């Protein structure tokens, strides 16, 4: 069965053929075999080359390094769209500390209006309303440290 991954907002499929090599199921293209040396290192082998490779996986990301570049992929079935929290809210684009709220709960806000300020590593970023509406609640208070992707506030559309 084909496995699906997202890289740079695009989906890619890969599956094993009869010989156990990896191929793109949508094209009749080349194949790659992934093997392990007795020492435990990974190799990516194609018709043209036999290359050192590195890979490591967490639950929602796969990190690989091959041909001199690093790539982060997300398995498709598990990844939820980033930046969309439940309730049409908005999320932290980077990990950081919430510095201050710029509006109050219940305020009418315009699309693009700055709602709060988040700071990480000397950099301050304003989090803006994705659409006009009413700010129904804040999900993180000033002083709180949040990971990337955390829902920060909710704006109910008009």
């Amino acid at each position, binding site marked *: 069965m084909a*496995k699906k*991954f997202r*890289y*740079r907002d695009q989906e*890619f499929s*890969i*599956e*094993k053929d009869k010989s156990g090599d*990896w191929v*793109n199921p949508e094209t009749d*293209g080349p194949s*790659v*075999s*992934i093997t*392990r040396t007795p020492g*435990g*290192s*990974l190799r*990516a082998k*194609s018709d043209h080359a036999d290359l050192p*490779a*590195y*890979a*490591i*996986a*967490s*639950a*929602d990301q*796969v*990190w*690989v*390094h*091959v*041909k*001199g*570049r*690093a*790539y982060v*992929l997300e*398995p498709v079935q*598990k990844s*939820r769209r980033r930046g969309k929290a439940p309730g049409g809210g908005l999320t932290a684009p*980077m*990990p*950081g*500390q919430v510095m201050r709220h710029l509006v109050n709960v219940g305020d009418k806000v315009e699309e693009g209006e700055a709602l709060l300020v988040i700071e*990480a*590593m*000397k*950099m301050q*970023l304003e989090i803006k309303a994705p659409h006009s509406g009413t700010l129904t609640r804040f*999900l*993180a208070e000033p002083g*709180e*440290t*949040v*990971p*990337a*992707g*955390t829902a920060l506030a909710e704006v109910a559309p008009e």
Partner: protein
Amino acid sequence: MIRKVLVANRGEIAVRVMRSLKELGVASVAVASEADINAPHALAADECVILGPAPASESYLNTKALLKAAKDTGCDALHPGYGFVSENASFTEECEKHGIVFIGPSAESMRVMGSKTASRAAMTDAGVPVVPGFHSEKGSDDELFEKAKEIGWPILLKASAGGGGKGMRVVDKPDAFASSLELCRSEAKVSFGDDTVYLEKYVTNPRHVEIQVFGDFEGNIFALGERECSVQRRHQKIIEESPSPAVDANLRKRMSAAAVEAAKAVAYKNAGTVEFLLDEDGSFYFLEMNTRLQVEHPVTEMVYGVDLVAAQVLTASGKPLTFDPKTLAPRGHAIEARVYAEDPAVGFLPQSGTVALLREPMIPGLRIDSGVAEGSEVGVYYDPMLAKIIAWAETREAATARLRAALEQYVLLGVQTNVNFLIDVLGHPTWESGKLTTGFLGQAFDPWTPPELPLEALALAGHAPSQKSSTHENRSSTQLPTPWQEWGAWRSLTEN
């Protein structure tokens, strides 16, 4: 000789300072915030003192805790690294008061060079070229206009109280002057509560070139060549080299002489850097002096074959240097690339996470100054620079090739970094031509496109064992994972 040094910093620079101390046979004491207890710098010293909670204001900037740590551990000196307390003049005086030698310049040199107006005045007196301009507390609009005409167009209007690019405005021609001045004044008033504005000649397409200077224990001041630092994104240097492709022997001599004059004007002692704007026509202007060791000092060390940290410690000990500055000559070419935890594809936003896998290349002529190791947690509290990769070779072309090869073999997984971006910068025709300006990155990579996904990468992802759904997305927003919780979630493919 100094016997024991408190290294008042973290990350790669703390590790780098400790390496030199070890070589000199000087004991070292690390300091760490509660977030850094297992960080490489905390483990690299002979002892480690926990300063306080993670925020820098409660740990690495906490001067009381630093002094107490130095006294409690019996240190007779303190090395500040760069950033944090390195340019805090009152702190250096506090140290001296408690009998702890501050490895750096005097508080007085620091104060003069730390002030825009005082340093400009001191440089003008010393005959060091400064950007032509007009600085006056009470310059009227008419007076400013007359001065602008004298200096010539384009003109840069700057808020006196401003900084970091805020409250700056370029005026190309006389008829735009009045309206720009009004806007600049109101911006300055709103942002800084002070509408004082000053004028400067606007240097089009400038380079940023700096000179390494050093004042030894007897007061002899000498220069150690230049560093080209024009490759910047948002005023942040990311690639530096020595020598500069724009500096020939004659210009080097003139810039070095000016830098030495600048340092002499404040009786400078120990390592420092004089930054200049270099114009297309070869004229150069004093920008500022950094009264500390610079991030990019390794490129100078590699072309001159010296250890600047060892020189700092010897000087602070009142000892002569191990080299004679008169016989020093640069050899070959060195380039440094800074590895940052950031995503260059999305506005260089800082990234956090755990360094799940790290493989550093071993190549002749290569040096890696790193502040992270496998398992290191990259948090949100500090500067996102993780490591510096420095390549030396006989020529600029060879050093570029070596650095690119090193970056392609530098494997860091688990935290997004700018390494793919750095590789592209070093492959860009403008880099190859050496015709660098501070505008280069903004013009050449707006936006930057990450590499296409090769089939090999996809096959590796397919090979990865599937994971049970984690609690990652449901994690409480109030706490960050500890490194070991996060670490437990990683599956290395080599352990299958």
